[in-house]
């Protein structure tokens, strides 16, 4: 068995940022394992711009952003096992992976899980109708166009207004396809406002809110979809059905953290985020195993993925150098309109700034988000508007942390 101080599972933006941060923290024996032949993860197929504004102060495409980190990884001589898929991670940090050279087993000092997320499929939606070719998840279509160089269809309907769906509406249009409509079952879009403007409005693509696909038609290849409006309980409203002829249906109906390895390792999970339960250093409840990026909770912007993953890299490096941090854990609870908060608990002895990340349950106008510990306000921020599609962040300044449960809630102003 090979030994490495830190093994990073997944070479996307989170994995590369964690590796670089761990190295710079002084633990240089770091390896990244990635299943693709080139690291970079899903960024490689995101050829649109808008990446890096927060983190790098410049606007880059996905592949450019990935390259910035790939160069940092290469400069430090961090080994990347490419074309290698991790099969299992155990609680005593044995990582087993397979590639064309055979099976590799590594005893890791610390493991950072950065596997990212996957898209919800048509099957998970349980949409009635036939099962023809031409129904793709938006990311699969993106890969076909941007990596493989093939158009998945000529006339499309997009279900779901998540960011990938919006980006793909524009991408399909730019490549000559006609995008008939984007349908969103919720009364609001799940995507970033800038994407609604730049990807739909600029191209006159209609966005139908409170509308979903209720039936899929076509025997061999998709021939059309029936859409209908839904009420507040997402039940179809009678007499609102409409048939749209199309040969392609793209689904952008949510992302699911890809935690098969995490669950198999017996790590405690958060039912709301679909990711592991972690502390402020991204440490899971299993000693020496860390998790960050979209595998922990789904992000809107890669910049924040990199930011947070650095925290995991540092946490893993500190663990390798100093072992477990002593101290009791303070639970962090989402209440009153906040859907979840990461981390789910904080070490009482934590030093330095502590970032809390959260999503609200409903869109709202002006609102204040506050983290409290008993009577003490640990952090607060006022927002002109909030939406489930936009992740919020609070920072607890050093020295404020007391004892007792921390709650995070949102109040309308």
């Amino acid at each position, binding site marked *: 068995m090979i030994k490495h101080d830190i093994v990073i599972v997944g070479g996307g933006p989170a994995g590369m940022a964690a590796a670089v941060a761990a190295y710079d923290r002084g633990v240089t024996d770091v390896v990244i394992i990635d*299943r693709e032949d080139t690291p970079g993860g899903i960024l490689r197929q995101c050829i649109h711009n808008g990446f890096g504004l927060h983190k790098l102060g410049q606007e880059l495409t996905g592949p450019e952003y990935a390259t910035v980190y790939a160069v940092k990884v290469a400069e430090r001589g961090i080994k990347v096992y490419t*074309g290698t*898929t991790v*099969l299992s991670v155990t609680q005593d940090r044995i990582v087993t992976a*397979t*590639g*064309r*050279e*055979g*099976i590799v087993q590594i005893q890791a000092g610390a493991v950072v899980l950065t596997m990212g997320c*996957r*898209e919800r*499929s*048509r*099957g*998970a939606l*349980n949409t*009635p*109708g*036939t*099962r*023809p*070719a*031409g129904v793709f*998840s938006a*990311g*699969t279509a993106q*890969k*076909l*166009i941007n*990596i*493989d*160089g*093939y*158009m*998945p*269809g*000529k006339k499309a309907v997009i279900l779901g207004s998540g960011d990938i769906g919006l980006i793909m509406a524009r991408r399909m249009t730019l*490549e000559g396809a006609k995008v008939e409509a984007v349908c969103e079952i919720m009364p609001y879009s799940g995507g970033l406002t800038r994407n609604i403007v730049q990807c739909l409005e600029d191209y006159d693509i209609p966005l139908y809110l409170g509308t979903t696909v*209720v039936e899929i038609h076509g*025997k*061999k*290849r998709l021939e059309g979809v029936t859409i209908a409006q839904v009420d507040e309980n997402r039940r*179809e409203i009678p007499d609102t059905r409409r048939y749209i002829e199309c*040969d392609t249906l793209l689904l952008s109906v949510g992302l*699911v953290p890809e935690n*098969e390895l995490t669950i198999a390792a017996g790590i405690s999970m958060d039912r709301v985020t679909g990711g592991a339960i972690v502390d402020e250093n991204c440490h899971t409840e299993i000693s020496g195993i860390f998790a960050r990026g979209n595998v922990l909770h789904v992000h809107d912007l890669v910049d924040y993925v990199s930011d947070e993953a650095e925290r995991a890299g540092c946490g893993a490096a500190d663990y390798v150098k100093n072992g477990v941090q002593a101290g009791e854990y303070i639970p962090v609870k989402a209440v009153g309109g906040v859907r979840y908060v990461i981390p789910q608990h904080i070490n009482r002895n934590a030093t330095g700034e502590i970032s809390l990340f959260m999503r609200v349950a409903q869109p709202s106008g002006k609102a204040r988000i506050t983290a409290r510990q008993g009577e003490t306000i640990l952090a607060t921020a006022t927002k002109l508007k909030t939406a489930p599609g936009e992740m919020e962040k609070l920072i607890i300044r050093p020295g404020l942390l007391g004892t007792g449960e921390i709650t995070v809630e949102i109040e309308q102003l």
Partner: protein
Amino acid sequence: MERYDVLIAGAGVTGGMIARELSRYNLSVCLLEKENDVACGATKANSGIIHGGHDPVPGTLKARLNAIGNPMLFEACRQLNVPHRRNESMVCAFGPDEEPAVDRLYQRGLENGIEGLEVITGDMARQLEPALSTQITKALLIKNSGIVCPYSLTIAAVGNAMDNGVTLKRNFEINKIEKTDGLFTVCSANGETVQGEYLINCAGCAADKIAAMAGDGFYTINPRAGEYMLMDKSEGGRVSRTIFQTPGKEGKGILVTPTVHGNLLTGPTAQAVDSGDSTFTSAQQLEKIQRLAAKSVPGVNFRQVITSFSGVRSSVDGGDFIIRMSDKVEKFAHVAAIDSPGLTCCVSIAVYVVDMLAQAGLKLTEKENWNGTREDPLAFSKMDMDQKNKVIAENPAYGKIVCRCETITEGEIMESLTRQPVALDLDGVKRRTRSGMGRCQGGFCSPYIMKLIAQHTGTDMTAVTKNGGSSYIAVHKL
């Protein structure tokens, strides 16, 4: 023109198993299939149950072929290395009104000569299956019943038949049958023609049309669709046995069963449809499945659904199988109306049909070198570490994971493209390897598999289809 001793119309599980049975003898046999792959009709979308035999009406062909067919199918699964499990089943009664039905089925089972039946109380049923509803008051336990993967079985049967010399012709949709000078001339929609001395009609939902083309169309198939919902493996352990409800006028009712691959399957509904192609699902029926499955097993988490689908069974009025030599057309065999328990009976039907052909004059001399076994396809996820390293050393493609959800390697994909009956499309690869059958339903792996198919067949990605015909995936190259 190609000429065979025996032509078989339809490469479902019945046609495939008959082909395998005939491959024992010195005969030339050709299996004709209208789709791009075998097992594309009722065979690919059913409950996958090896029925005990308590259900068919005594005295029917179904009762007889089920009773002898159950052990024959278990044996064939072993020979062909097809995933199967004798997981037992239960027919559950909810309250005093339904309890007599359990007793009736028990009596019927005894009459059919079925062993391993036991009437148990609701509490005993819940001891065996703790997830069962507290409303269940009585149940029939069927110890000889099992589960099997129906398309793996058919692929293996056809593959084994082909290894023993049988020819498979796909995309051969029969549109004309002529008989002159004791020979059937069978034409396909795309202009191919083959000749044969005997013609066996196991065309499923199209069997009535084929029979009419041959000149003996005395029955009408009433296609009945059954919708199913398949749950993620996280739900697979909900029950260990197959859980039926007492039969009503809609057939055996909604079942809850584990699959051999570790998923949980619920369904089927039963409704009349126009044709065998009517494999659509509807919101109403999917809701019904959830409601009725929850009646037996209240804890099923339907949020874990990974796909829903519909299969169309070929039923007839009267309800029994139609298996006999034609009265009107010499050497034409009807093997029609093979609905439930058709899968269980596939081997017994095959043996019965071959006997029937022999009586009709087909000369059977056994091959000296017939081999009825088929090796298990190499399944990476089932190997231990040493085996994995060994196969990767021999062929590095076995180290490359293509389908992350089901842990399927490039080596397994390539095997499905090169081993008879070879996969020609994405669904074919999926049925042979399980790639794309997991949680992401092919989201990540399908472009890569398309590339492998295109490379292997020397075509462009635009020529790769989901399931033949116009089911193309990429429309043009950028």
